């Protein structure tokens, strides 16, 4: 029923890029049950009334890690953490990717690459990752993906790192091989839509991790709505509870 404990200690915090941080907590209760695609809901100090959702970018042993960009007061507070700080965390929350087994393609766009690292690690070397960034200066976690995956492809909008263009380019080519059983993706909505269309055209199952402003994070308040369809009928799903990961065929783009 009630979580045994909701306050966890920061063990490590480091900047990945300007304004982007990776923070690790000593949180065995959270790490043990965390699944790729799930998130944690963090109380970022007392001054903000609501918690902030963060996709889990790794969970192993006693440690749980999230990667985030400083966007406002809450994330600024979290970025100012030092090892030893006690942080109130609710989670792991939501429904993650249904399966990370077999030959899978992982697509991550921008900051959306971070939670995909958790999926890549759980795929135990059988995943191929396609990561898209604005430019070399905003690329994150590429070394970690390289060691976790069978192969990785990086694209940047300006060509400053890897291939010039969007993640769709290498993804389309990889899908043509017919080797992959699923595509798992997290990133900007336009990218997810493109990934979903490519996958559907190739007849490959695709799961996308969506984002929406959240209130409660547990499915009660209905503010993080996204339109979905199932069996021909439209409905409003809750990103925090029904998602954040959805079968791409159910999303109404």
């Amino acid at each position: 029923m009630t979580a045994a404990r909701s306050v966890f200690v920061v063990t490590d915090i480091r900047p990945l890029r300007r304004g982007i941080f990776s923070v690790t907590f000593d949180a065995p209760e959270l790490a043990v049950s965390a699944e790729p695609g799930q998130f944690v809901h963090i109380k970022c100090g007392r001054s903000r009334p609501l918690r902030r959702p963060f996709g889990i970018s790794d969970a192993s042993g006693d440690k749980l890690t999230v990667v985030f960009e400083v966007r406002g007061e809450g994330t600024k507070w979290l970025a100012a953490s030092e090892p030893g700080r006690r942080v109130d965390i609710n989670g792991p929350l939501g429904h993650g990717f249904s399966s990370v087994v077999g030959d899978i393609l992982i697509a991550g766009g921008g900051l959306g690459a971070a939670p995909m690292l958790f999926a890549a690690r759980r795929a135990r070397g059988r995943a191929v990752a396609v990561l898209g960034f604005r430019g070399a200066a905003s690329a994150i976690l590429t070394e970690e993906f390289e060691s976790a995956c069978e192969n990785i492809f990086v694209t940047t909008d300006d060509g400053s790192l890897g291939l010039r263009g969007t993640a769709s380019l290498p993804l389309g080519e990889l899908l043509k091989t017919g080797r992959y059983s699923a595509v798992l993706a997290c990133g900007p909505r336009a990218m997810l839509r493109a990934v979903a269309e490519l996958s559907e055209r190739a007849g490959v199952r695709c799961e996308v991790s969506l984002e929406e402003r959240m209130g409660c994070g547990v499915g009660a308040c209905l503010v993080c709505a996204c339109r979905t369809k199932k069996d021909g009928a439209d409905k409003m799903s809750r990103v925090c509870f029904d998602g954040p990961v959805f079968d791409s065929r159910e999303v109404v783009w």
Partner: protein
Amino acid sequence: MSVDTRVTFAGVEFKNPVVTASGTFGFGREYSKYYSLSELGGVCTKGLTVRARLGNPPPRMAETPMGMLNSVGLQNPGVDEFIKTELPFMRGFDTRVIANIAGETIEEYAELAEKLSGAGVDMIEVNVSCPNVKAGGMQFGVTASSVAAVTRETRRRSRVPIMLKLSPNVTDIAETARAAEGEGADAISLMNTLLGMRIDIKTRRPLLANNTGGLSGAAVFPVAVRMVWQARGAVKLPILGMGGISTGEDAVEMLLAGASLVGVGTASFSRPGAALSVRDGIAAYMREYGVGSVSELTGKVEIF
């Protein structure tokens, strides 16, 4: 000392004065993973309508200083689905079930009241104050004559006590409170959210797809206390007071202003156990100040 937290409210006995506010607690399923709903005085359902509603397009929420705006727009599965799948779940707990209803017409309000009172809810909260729907909602809550008309029809068709949830978006809360009392309401609850708006200055677009939304959270608490106090002075009906309560101290303040029950809403979003800490905080206050029964606090503010 032992304290008595029971409250008899419009003839219904509540084991403690804490009720979760409509729209912040679903039908209790989500928060029942954090604590047993039997710990609560009551649970108030998400607003129910005759037919299922998808609600408003996202984004539906914007955080504000110590509060939040929402424009959910009464997303719910419809009254029949509620009776079939949600009510039996809620009935599995030893807590009072208050069904919140919203009609697009007076006849819909009456139909909802009749159906739900026959299905076994303990009380009906008549939502004439939702700021996020085009038809119905607040439109019925801002004039005394429409509050009177909705009260009259729902009272006539309901077999259980009815409570009018009043809108703060009025000039004089006493007027709408009296209108409810005049047509036989058994109780009133207040307040619903305050109509608000935020704008993104980079894009010059509102932060909510519905443009405006309802403000809740600690930011609105003083307004709610004032309105409960004013309503208490205007009518003899028992009052469920809510709006920004997040601690036991807040709840005691609301009781002193004139409430008999208190609602906890937005506070649950940041602390899933907020309603229970409010309940425990009230009891702690009672012990500290030698208050034997929680009802002794209602309306006991000593006005200057």
